[in-house]
């Protein structure tokens, strides 16, 4: 059970990381990146590091996402070809 959950989490982590890198729409990339942070927080909790999980969830999934979104609104949404 634990191993299966770990496997699913790692696969999701890889998928979100690849999507965040390859997405042309920067807003989509930022949202996928916040999902990545959320899964990473779950992984920290699975590795018994609740301190890091709290930090990752608050800073990685919350604060940096909003800062990225603000930056996108102030610049351009599409990546240049």
């Amino acid at each position, binding site marked *: 059970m634990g191993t299966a959950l770990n496997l699913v989490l790692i696969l999701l982590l890889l998928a979100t990381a690849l999507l965040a890198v390859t997405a042309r729409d920067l807003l989509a990339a930022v949202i996928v990146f916040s999902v990545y942070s959320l899964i990473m927080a779950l992984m920290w909790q699975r590795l018994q590091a*609740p*301190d890091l*999980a*709290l*930090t990752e969830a*608050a*800073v990685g999934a*919350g*604060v940096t996402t*909003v*800062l990225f979104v*603000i*930056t996108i*609104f*102030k610049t351009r949404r599409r990546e240049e070809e």
Partner: protein
Amino acid sequence: MKKVAALLFISALAVLLLFVVAGMPPMGDPGNPTVTHVIPRYLERAEEETHTVNVITGIILNYRGYDTMGEVTVIFCALAAVLAVLGRERRGVIHGFVDRSEVPASVIVKTMVRFIVPFIILFSVYTILHGETSPGGGFQGGAVIGGSMIIFTTIFGLYESSRRIPLKVRAPLEGAAVMGFFLVGSLGLVGGGNFLTYAWPRVAQGLHPSLVVWLTVLVEVGIGLGGAMVLTSILFAMIREEEEIAPAS
């Protein structure tokens, strides 16, 4: 050509990293270097040496106090860099593009945010004050306060938000983390011990445990307030806009 070179470089890097991974000790093995060097000392003597309730708090705020102080300084420097590029808002009324948005936030969202923000702040206060006995601590609590300010600002706009936490409140508190750490650390020097230690041979043989707890809480509150204010200031600096508009009434 460029792509082939990049592919070769990345493949070489991957092989190198995989070699390093193969050389790593197995996870959870009792013979690991991480387990045999400093961990036994931490586990056995942290309570008498640092007088903290929790070993992890002892490590973060005492054994590796310099480390944590450096991290706090890094966050402060990040704020300084953001302000150096974007500039501080002028005293008084400020506003951002959220205030000028043509689509006003719906009543449901506004009511929910108004309802939920106090609870988020309450949770972060719990995280900060219970930091020395449970997971969490100053930095996490500060980040949660910063998150609640972000929610409030994105829904109600910068004008309302900056009235809640004006510049004259934020500016002195931004340095609270660094200052609190430095002051408590210096108290250890004054007491005849080392920087950031809670053993003060010049004052008494072993401090009263409750005093140590209060000093730890002081450092945690400093880190929390400083972190929250730094995050809020970065947000305000990024979201604000130059042109003057009349505040929405």
